[in-house]
């Protein structure tokens, strides 16, 4: 059994462990487990840490119409940490981008939903991701296009913290800062755990907020499971009208189920047992 480690933030303002999940957050997590169970594999813990970020984006922030997923004026949202895709699939299905039934075909030959999201296959997916460090450069391309054509849409790039070890992230951060891309928001799911261990041990990201600021971003950190904090920071446009925005979301990897939280063995889970599935559903409540 891989040991759990506890890298949680202690500052009470942004401490993700203080948040109790509401019914919608539990329901989305149940959908994630349904999908995971159908595919018999998946980055469950990586998806659980993302739920509130994606939920607030798709419920309250993005200008989108699931019936017109390619509408020119829509806001663009790229899930750069593509391995967290089950959370994205759950919210896209919930919003009606594709039938919920499709979730039952996760990772199956006949399905459109793979272990990483693909542009052109999945309505609502703006870019194929999976290899890390690709979403931000593509998002900069979107944001520059909006500026070139004087279009009002915003681009959101949701990234993992471990992903920020990729050089391309910082190449892109320089570029976003240089262009003062105020129509771009980077959201980092800062759960502080990678596949092997903590980001502090494996990559060394701190001082993380200062890094974004020094690259020309207006940056804040929030509790990434606190719906109100997320709404408040995401709904009000850029933090600075002359800079790209970076929002560090303090989260818990595996948030919502006692035995998946901060448990490295749930980063990418295969070979799930019936007992484990039963316990997952037991903690998340019954579908209703």
């Amino acid at each position, binding site marked *: 059994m891989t040991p759990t480690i506890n890298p949680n933030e202690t500052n009470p303002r942004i401490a993700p462990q203080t948040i109790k999940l509401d019914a919608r957050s539990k329901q989305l997590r149940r959908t994630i487990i349904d999908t995971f169970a159908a595919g018999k594999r998946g980055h469950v813990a990586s998806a659980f840490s993302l739920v509130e970020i994606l939920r607030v984006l798709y419920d309250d922030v993005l200008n989108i119409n699931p019936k017109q997923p390619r509408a020119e004026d829509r806001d663009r949202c790229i899930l750069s940490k593509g391995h967290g895709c089950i959370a994205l699939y759950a919210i896209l299905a919930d919003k009606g981008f594709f039938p919920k039934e499709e979730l039952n075909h996760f990772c199956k030959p006949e399905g459109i939903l793979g272990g990483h999201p*693909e*542009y*052109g296959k999945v309505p609502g997916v*703006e*870019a*194929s991701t999976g*290899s890390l*460090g*690709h979403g*931000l*450069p*593509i*998002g*900069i*391309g*979107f944001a*520059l*296009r909006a*500026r*070139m054509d004087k279009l009002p849409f915003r681009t959101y790039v949701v990234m993992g913290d471990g992903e920020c070890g990729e*050089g*391309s992230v910082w*190449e*892109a951060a*320089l*570029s976003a800062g*240089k262009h003062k891309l105020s129509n771009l928001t980077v959201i980092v799911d800062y759960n502080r755990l990678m596949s092997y261990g903590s980001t502090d041990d494996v990559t060394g990201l701190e001082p993380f907020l200062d890094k974004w600021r020094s690259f020309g971003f207006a940056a804040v950190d929030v509790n990434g499971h606190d719906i109100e904090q997320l709404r408040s920071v995401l709904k009000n446009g850029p933090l600075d009208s002359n800079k790209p925005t970076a929002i560090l979301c303090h989260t818990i990897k595996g948030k919502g189920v006692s035995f998946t939280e901060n448990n490295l063995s749930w980063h990418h889970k295969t070979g799930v047992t019936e007992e484990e599935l039963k316990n997952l559903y037991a903690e998340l409540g019954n579908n209703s």
Partner: protein
Amino acid sequence: MRKTSLDTVYELAKKDPRVVFIGSDLGPDTLKQMKAEFPNRFFMEGISEANVVGLAAGMALEGKIPYINTITTFLSRRACEQMVLDMCLHNVNVRLLGSGGGLVYAPLGPTHLAIEDIAITRAMPNMTVVAPCDANEMKRIMLQTVDYQGPMYIRIAKGGDPIVSVESNLCKIGEPIVMRKGKDALIVTTGITLKLGLEAAEQLKTSKNLEVGVLHVHTLKPLNERLMREAFAAVPAIVAIEEHTVIGGLGSSVAEIIAEAGFDKPKKFKRIGIPDVFPDQYGSQATLMKRYDITTENLIATISGWL
């Protein structure tokens, strides 16, 4: 050839608002006029090729046609994954104009020599790979790039290369050009080796009265395999010559077609190119080509030895 390709980007930009130029860290006056006329479609993004290719793919997903220019090894080697995933997996209209294809940067050493760019790009699904022989052919190809669908890699040679292409030949992306017909042997060329092929065929005619054909493959992918098979079927001996490693480039493509063609009689066949080494000398493009026998003389000797 580089000047022609960049001048053509400006020409295309004047006609089509989707055309965007992106450089990494090029010379101070690069596309000065385009920058002055279309400042919001001219980007100089710094020494950050992964980001440059990624953001170009983002623009292309949004309907733009970005042309990227930088030293070619920094694309095919450094930004390889961005080319595969951001450009090719999304199948978007990004055009890479790779400067210094082959041995052009001889004095700068192996970090700058693009000896395997064709092999790398050829293996990327959806990628079109083009190596024009001179500035005129570059121009003809560049003019087709706005309406061409999918990602493209265009290999730029040294510049000032002698003009050997012929305007009356149909130059269409994806279609090899029969430059010279001949029943005794066939020389298959790409990029600047067309000049060597034409010289060798002419000298073999003059000195030995041999009829040697020359097939110029400016587009290495997609290949018109049917046309190439027909050309190979008509001769007993074939030489492929390229300014590139013999692994995975033109010679390999030709060998693959011959191997699968099921010809009744076996063909004499040779690949002329850079062996599987990092070039170990400086000098010039010409001296390195001579060092690896990528020469008219080697073509003549090879074909003469067979016939």
